[in-house]
């Protein structure tokens, strides 16, 4: 009995530590006070209103989403091609490329950021949207490769051969058999790429032109430069929205996965 109480207390403590700050943030997103802690007057949606009227914030949101989608799409295409190329190459070549793609994953992000900035300066490549896009592709590409490769390894090698055997050219077999077979890996690679790109600060800050801001750079810089900035509290509303979107998508993914399992077992 005592053991049970201790167990659940421990569990609840951890959950509170994890979620209390987020809950606090969400609660205060419905209050216009400049600081969290001092509750001013009543519940309202003024922060949400500000969020959708402040041009700078709107721009940052647009930039972030557009950057995340475009860089992830490019990284997914390149990463999938890379993984397929690696998988079908000789074992020695595979090992070399596998190590090369693993390094950026373990490497400290600040090192990647500084090296990208250095390369840009060296090549006299001006900081533009293009440099930012390339930097994000560099950031997310290895993650796509590592999520596609296991799917290729799991695939029955006879499947591709069966395609050839039934008259498909290698390219046709690649698109009608290999790609559909590894599509779950490609999709999860794309999702990982998006989440990495969305909240990246370090690499973005080193490679972006001064005129472009993403949500993370805007938030960091706003807090750092000027605490009196009137739009700062609006970021609370933004965070609450992002949190809600994430919760909804996680729950949706889990529900659909459960449904699939039940369908399989039902038959």
């Amino acid at each position: 009995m005592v053991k049970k109480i201790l167990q659940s207390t421990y569990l609840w403590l951890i959950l509170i530590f994890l979620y209390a700050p987020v809950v606090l943030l969400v609660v205060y997103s419905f209050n216009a006070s400049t600081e969290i802690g001092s509750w001013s007057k009543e519940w309202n949606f003024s922060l949400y209103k500000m969020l959708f009227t402040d041009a700078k914030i709107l721009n940052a949101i647009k930039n972030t989403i557009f950057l995340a989608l475009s860089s992830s799409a490019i990284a997914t295409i390149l990463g999938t091609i890379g993984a397929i190329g690696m998988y079908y190459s000789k074992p020695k070549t595979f090992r070399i490329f596998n190590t090369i793609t693993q390094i950026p994953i373990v490497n400290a992000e600040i090192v990647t950021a500084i090296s990208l900035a250095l390369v840009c300066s060296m090549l006299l490549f001006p900081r533009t949207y293009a440099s930012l896009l390339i930097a994000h592709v560099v950031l997310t590409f290895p993650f796509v490769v590592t999520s596609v490769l296991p799917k290729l390894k799991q695939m029955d090698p006879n499947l591709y051969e069966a395609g050839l055997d039934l008259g498909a050219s290698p390219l046709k077999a690649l698109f009608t058999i290999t790609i559909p077979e590894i599509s779950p890996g490609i999709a999860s690679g794309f999702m990982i790429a998006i989440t990495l790109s969305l909240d990246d600060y370090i690499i973005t800050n080193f490679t972006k032109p001064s005129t472009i801001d993403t949500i993370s750079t805007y938030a960091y810089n706003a807090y750092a430069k000027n605490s009196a900035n009137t739009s700062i509290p609006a970021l609370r509303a933004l965070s609450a929205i992002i949190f809600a979107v994430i919760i909804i998508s996680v729950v949706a993914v889990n529900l659909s996965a459960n449904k699939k399992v039940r369908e399989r077992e039902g038959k």
Partner: protein
Amino acid sequence: MADKIIELKKVSKIYDGTAVVDNIDLYIRKGEFVTLLGPSGCGKSTTLRMIAGFEKPDSGEILLNGKDITQIPPYLRPINTVFQRYALFPHLNVYDNIAYGLKLKRVKNVYEDKNGKQVVKYEKISKKVIDEKVSRALKMVDLEEFEKRDVTTLSGGQQQRIAIARAIVNEPEILLLDEPLGALDLKMRQDMQLELKEMHKKLGITFIYVTHDQEEALTMSDTIVVMNDGVIQQIGTPKDIYNEPKNSFVADFIGESNIMSGTIAGDHKVRFIGHVFDMVDDFELHEKVDVVVRPEDIYIVNKDKGQVNGKIISSIFKGIHYEMTFLVGKTEIIIQDTAERMVGEEVSIIIKPEDIHIMKKEYLVNSYDGYITKNNKVAFAEGEFDCDVTKLYPGSHLDEEEYLITADGQRIDLTDTPVKVEVPLDKVEIIDNEEDGNTSGEIISIIYKGDHYQVIIRTPEEEEDFVVDTEYLWNENDKVSVKIKPEDITLKLKVK
């Protein structure tokens, strides 16, 4: 006789320096049901994959209807394959799996335009025709109305049928089957064997079937190609292969058999297990041979009533018959009979002349190319062996500095002299510990020959074989080492 549909000419395939398929010649006639039979790793699957086009031979050529197709990729060959683990596309349903090949196909149609000129168009097969063909193929494999099913929900047997339907729907000239029944249980396998044979009759196309199951091969095939170690051992009808095995590997691999050493004792007479038997094969007098007798061809009679007396030392009930071991001298003979004889009973056996099959001995002696090393040892098969180098020159001896002095006083340094080395089969000692012998290798084959085992040990790098006659039982794939006494090594100078 029908035309040759496929022909392999001196085809070899090499992986990591090992010839998996070693210079084979083989042809298959149109409409035949041919089985490539052999133990795992014998090269049968690689041969099939070369016919399908998944592997390119390292040398030799493959002809289809007399045309060289060696360099033609698999998707341009009129050949379809049924894979061992089915290889159905999991993201497609049954219909789309079967229609996959048809949808890719382009049919040559010739039209006449307004000016009466002929126009050739390559067109897709219409949806209606595809529908018809798919349902016909499904009917062929007894799975009508399965079109919309998800392939992952099907049982193993059903998946196998879909895989067969997917291959035959393309109307290939040759159907390749790579151990297609390996994953099914015994009862289902037997049913499918008969169904496949039936299907072969109906379709009239050439079937090339790969299996390691000799019973399956005997049941289904018109022709069996027995392979071992990348080499074709024998090609023949199931009856030929069973009744007239060419060598002890085939005799041992197909069915159960007693293989014994014998000597030709006269015209149509052979001596083995201490008795001279009449037989029907023609061999030279005094030739050492291997004698094969199938266990079901030996008759047990009461003591002194047969040709050879002996004792029953074991008996096992096998359902339709008893499998008994008959001991005569040191030789054990397996006999199958429906009447049981008690263990310990003294009995006599009779073997009819036509049931005695004689094979030439494959190995009479081990011979190698070697050379003499600095310290007057001989190096061959990845090892160094003590030997008596004075045997190379009659009347010679060694001086105190280990130089050889010939009979007429000439002083010779033998270092690096190339020699021919011969070692009798029964003079090679096998040692369990890999380090203790002069050279080591892996046991690649064991065949029981009545009173001894014939073991073949292969060295890893140069792939030299030691054929050893021993009374002791070893295990295949064991790593062992080999020791030979100096007096058992015969050396001969190589003529330059």
